[in-house]
């Protein structure tokens, strides 16, 4: 069985599934049917292609980072520049696709969760473009840390709902979005921001994000005539990594590396490395790896990058891990910050702190590979949002 054929009956091997309250089962079934219809409809594809090209600015470049390559003295490093997509991150690939789907399903109100605010902003952008009402749930802790993004969403005509429950962060904003959804099923579309949640969400988000991997494949072929040797992407919920990996799943010569956030170090317990240090569980509607205690309570996470700060991971990543198709590794806060500084100085690109984790691992990997080989790193977003965090981390005054 080809790996790209999954999900089968909503599952990736044993992972995935649909662990949600009964009240949602019908709506999720409808969503699945609507999505399959849309996927086959050339008119839907034409609309999506139009917005991706004219509004999002795709294709994004595949850029050879010559300075960094020279400095490391190993494999060539290419950067897939998702930071240049509208909104400054890959998130828009998914929100544009799902917002079009919501509109097609006749929904007028779109809800979304957000941690750092990137998915919230991308949802607000897509909804404003398509004339949909956007309501974004965001933990009060995150609202405080990311005040600029809260205001940005408001400017884009979205309503921001601060979430006071639980740890007041991303996982709680997801809980709250589910609670809103069960209350307002008739009018509301839940636009999930990563390859997580109950089936069909992990598949839908992967499919919309796989434009990243498809472009990499075509661009790399055009530049070199072949396939890259390795792909590197950061993993929180896992959407930019899944979008990067999926079109290459059956190309077994291409090594796939997912990089999680090791925070202050796996051994300190202050991290978000779900695949590296977690265990199997059922959380947010899916069977997957989670960070939990021995009683099955979900654990708090830590990462310098808010976008990787999530105690679960997309079920397809769990599947790629145990089937050994992909290798999951991690980078600590300090390594990510170092990579941020290096890429900024060497290449003139400020990467998002999330993407900096992928850059950090690529910097370790490249010197171990031949100069004739190539690595593609997905630069999932731009780092302008992280400048204050970097300043605080290195003790600089702005």
């Amino acid at each position, binding site marked *: 069985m080809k790996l790209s054929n999954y999900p089968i009956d909503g599952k990736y091997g044993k992972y995935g599934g649909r662990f*949600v309250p009964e*009240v949602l089962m019908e709506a999720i079934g409808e969503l699945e049917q609507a999505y399959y219809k849309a996927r086959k409809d050339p008119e839907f594809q034409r609309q999506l292609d139009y917005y991706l090209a004219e509004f999002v600015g795709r294709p994004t470049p595949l850029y050879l980072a010559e300075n960094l390559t020279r400095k490391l003295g190993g494999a060539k490093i290419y950067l897939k520049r998702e930071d240049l997509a509208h909104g400054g991150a890959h998130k828009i690939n998914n929100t544009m696709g799902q917002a079009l789907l919501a509109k097609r399903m006749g929904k007028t109100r779109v809800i979304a969760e957000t941690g750092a605010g990137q998915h919230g902003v991308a949802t607000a952008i897509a909804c404003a473009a398509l004339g949909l009402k956007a309501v974004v749930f965001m933990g009060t802790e995150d609202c405080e840390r990311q005040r600029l993004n809260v205001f940005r969403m408001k400017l884009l005509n979205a309503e921001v709902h601060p979430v006071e429950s639980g740890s007041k962060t991303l996982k709680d904003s997801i809980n709250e979005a589910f609670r809103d959804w069960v*209350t307002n099923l008739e009018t509301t579309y839940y636009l999930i921001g990563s390859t997580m949640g109950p089936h069909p969400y992990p598949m839908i988000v992967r499919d919309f994000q796989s434009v990243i991997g498809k472009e990499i494949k075509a661009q790399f072929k055009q530049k070199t005539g072949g396939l890259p040797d390795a792909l590197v992407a950061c993993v929180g919920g896992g959407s930019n990594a899944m979008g990067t990996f999926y079109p290459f799943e059956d190309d077994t010569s291409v090594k796939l590396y997912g990089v999680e956030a090791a925070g202050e170090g796996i051994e300190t317990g202050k991290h978000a490395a779900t695949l590296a240090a977690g265990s199997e569980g059922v959380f947010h509607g899916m069977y997957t790896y989670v960070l939990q205690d021995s009683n099955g309570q979900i654990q708090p996470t830590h990462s310098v990058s808010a976008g990787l700060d999530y105690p679960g991971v997309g079920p397809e990543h769990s599947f790629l891990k145990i089937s050994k198709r992909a290798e999951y590794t991690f980078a600590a806060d300090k390594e990510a910050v170092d990579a941020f500084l290096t890429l900024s100085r060497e290449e003139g690109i400020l990467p998002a702190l999330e993407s900096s984790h992928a850059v950090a691992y690529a910097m370790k990997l490249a010197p171990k590979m031949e100069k004739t080989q190539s690595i593609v790193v997905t630069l999932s977003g731009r780092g302008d949002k992280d400048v204050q965090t970097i300043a605080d981390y290195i003790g600089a005054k702005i």
Partner: protein
Amino acid sequence: MSSITKVVQKAKAKGNGALIGYIMAGDPTPELTPKIADALIKGGVDILELGLPFSDPIADGPTIQAAGLRALNAGTTPLKVLEVAKQIKQQHDVPIVIMTYYNPVFRLGVDKFLGLAKEHMVDGFIVPDLPVEEATEYKAAAKKHDLDTIFLAAPSTTNQRLTKIVDASSGFLYLVSRYGVTGAKTTVEDSTVQLIKRIQPFTAEKIPLAVGFGISTPKHVEQIIAAGADAAIVGSAFINIIQNNSPTMNKELQATAKALKAATKTAK
């Protein structure tokens, strides 16, 4: 027939509905839960639903979320909840149902957890984030350990799904009264009454029909029993009393349970 079903049938034979009371085990502390249960049972609760706290309760509104947090902060673990259940069972001949999310059960091992629950005299389980499609292992373990599996039906559940859910359920069917999460409301909507009338023919002669979510006053209980439900599930109304943790808490709980139970009798 399971002891849960028997209790409902017994009430029915007397012309009454059954009262199912929900509390969060460990709220405010695991030591106080048996005393709270005692007050509810003395007041007239026929079946006790014990919440087992989970960090991320997506089906619950603010009242039960806060109760879960208080219980977790008081050091409540799944094993402590089972011990509390056993303490209550040793004092009262009342069926106990554990209501929790799937992850704590899954984490300990479904078969192991259900086996332990049986040893602690638990009668059944409600797992709101486990739909029938994902419940194969759980159903098998429950059958092996002779525990009731109470599934939920919702306003959005089609007749076709309903048949599947009724077939998978034992003890009673838990009908969610409305779109939304748990929590007290001021009125029972007409749509809830219509919903009970739609669902009732599917459960009649098969399994008791219990209705929960938003049922908090004697009038609500009266309305849903009159509409055709066999039992009313009340949670947030009790938890609102528990969260104040006043010196007269147990008296208030008993009086509230008594008034709710009385309302199952006046219903026609």
